[in-house]
């Protein structure tokens, strides 16, 4: 039973699913394939460093053979790149290997927390946009950087909720709210969403979509967890579209305290 949320679009391409799924960390390519099918995602990210870029159909790097390019938009990511130069090089190789001219820009010089480098990310975005790429940069939850990327022609921004794989949820909530408030391009909350409730909360906040990988890949039943995330995303989005009641510190009386004003002939 779908809640029928509004379709959305990135760079003129329309999607009904608002769940991006990453393809790392699965126990097998088959488990990954089944999870993608189970959750109805339309957007799948793949690490270029794990794929075969030689054009020789390398059996030791066959991850792309398990993702139906008719069914999903495959968005290559540049994970492993330490600077703009490497990310640009990888993105170009992806296109040369027949992948879509889309790129999820991931430039993280720090291999431990995989936090994105804002300076190199902006630089790479400027170069790749000029070359005609649809660029989806992974960033820290920095509202000014988000605007700078938007001005540079990024198709979305993908701010993190918490470090990749941390499952810690919306640690950056306050900054994410500002990013969403100010954005004229879709905001996709990426990284750190460990539970369906995190994803629902991200959507209620007004994110256009979320990206989930670790929490699905390492679940005891990845397909089932993928479905759980898909429903949470729908629920959160539907609630956002309807408008959520504002949270209050105190209980509000069912009989308003200023009800007498109506009786006296209208409010001021």
């Amino acid at each position, binding site marked *: 039973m779908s809640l029928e949320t509004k379709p959305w679009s990135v760079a003129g391409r329309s999607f009904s699913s608002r769940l991006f799924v990453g393809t790392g960390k*699965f126990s097998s390519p088959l488990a990954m394939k089944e999870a993608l099918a189970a959750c109805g995602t339309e957007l799948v990210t793949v690490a270029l460093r794990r794929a075969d*870029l030689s054009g020789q159909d390398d059996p030791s790097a066959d991850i792309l053979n398990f993702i139906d390019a008719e069914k999903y938009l495959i968005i290559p990511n540049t994970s492993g790149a330490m600077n703009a130069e490497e990310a640009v090089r990888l993105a170009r190789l992806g296109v040369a290997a027949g992948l879509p001219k889309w790129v999820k820009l991931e430039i993280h010089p720090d291999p431990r927390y995989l936090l994105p480098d804002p300076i190199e990310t902006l630089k790479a975005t400027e170069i790749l946009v000029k070359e005609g790429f649809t660029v989806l940069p992974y960033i820290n939850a920095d509202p000014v950087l988000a605007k700078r990327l938007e001005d540079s022609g990024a198709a979305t921004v993908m701010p993190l909720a918490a470090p990749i794989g941390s499952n810690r949820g919306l640690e950056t909530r306050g900054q994410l709210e500002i990013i969403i408030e100010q954005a004229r391009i879709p905001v996709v909350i990426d990284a750190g969403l460990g539970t369906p409730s995190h994803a629902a909360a991200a959507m209620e906040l007004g994110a256009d979509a979320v990206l989930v990988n*670790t929490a699905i890949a390492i679940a005891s039943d990845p397909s089932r967890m993928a479905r759980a995330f898909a429903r949470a995303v729908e629920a959160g989005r539907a609630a956002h579209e309807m408008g959520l009641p504002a949270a209050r510190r105190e209980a509000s009386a069912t009989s308003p305290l200023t009800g007498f004003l109506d009786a006296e002939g209208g409010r001021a």
Partner: protein
Amino acid sequence: MSFVERFNQLPEERSPLLRRFEGLLDAGVDLESLAGEAASLTRQHFGRTMRLFAPLYVSNECVNICKYCGFSRDNPILRVTLGVDQVEMEARHLVAEGFRNILLVAGEHPKFVSESYLEDCIRRIRPLVPSISLEVGPMETVEYEPLVRAGAEGLVVYQETYDRQAYAELHTAGPKRNFDWRLECPERAYAAGFRRIGIGALFGLADWRQEARALAAHAEYLLKSCWKASLTISFPRLRPAAGEFEPRVVLTDAELTRLICAFRVCFPQVGLVLSTREPAKLRDGLIPLGVTLMSAGSHTEPGGYTGAGREQLHRTEKGKMIPLIASEGEYATEQFAISDQRSAGEIVARLQGMGFDPVWKDWDSALGGVPIRG
């Protein structure tokens, strides 16, 4: 400040992380619950995957005397340095097996294993192999730089033992005697642009808890000072080798398991390596607990995969090659005897059976090749 200064402050000045680490090595800490925490952290950070690599020994010549090592210069073993064509032949064999991550290994011998020789080897196999690492005698930063530009992205150097006295007793001749120079090697490698740095201690030479503490301190230091490098840690235990060295101390299977779990818990994102030195059953047991990088079907002698270099076998005395008489043997002597004899295919099948995706390629030659200083 290099790690030498930090190392010299141990054990008096320990960080909270090191204190925690030491606490976990205490036999009083329940191993089962430690293993549970380690397994959960490994799954969270690395998923259900296992990276695979193979060592490719290019030379077993060595100028050092290391009492525990089969390649020690005073061991009358059969030696060879593979020609670049032979290195390519060995690499092609490993690529056909599925490997995309190769560790080039050599003894330390400036005459046979020069920087330009290594550079030639790297350039030759780079079109075949997306990820190339080196385990060779320590060098200066400027000597490493051409190797990085040629396409090597990882460097592995074990301190062997962090116990200065044991180190002096066991390394009696050759440049390897210089403890501090070796200790600073990972920093020089990082400055040259290596993206993956591997460290380790050879367990069996000195008290294992002290070795582990120093290794943890080294890891902690490198994570801060070489923050752009991916760090891996290895825990090799001494294996039988030419020279018949007997381990001075024994690290039991249970202690090795504890050690690996303690590293995982204190360093959740760091790669932990387990080679074919360890027996199959133990390796299988350790897979879910913390190990993230495994070798498979390894040979520890040059030419071991294809027989390459057989015609050039010789002994080496005082830097001179002594030809063999035909009856002396057909293969170069291995560095040590491996224990897990399973082929790469068998290990892959086992990993898949355990619910792990074997990852052959997780690096692309489009990455790297540019020094990362500054």
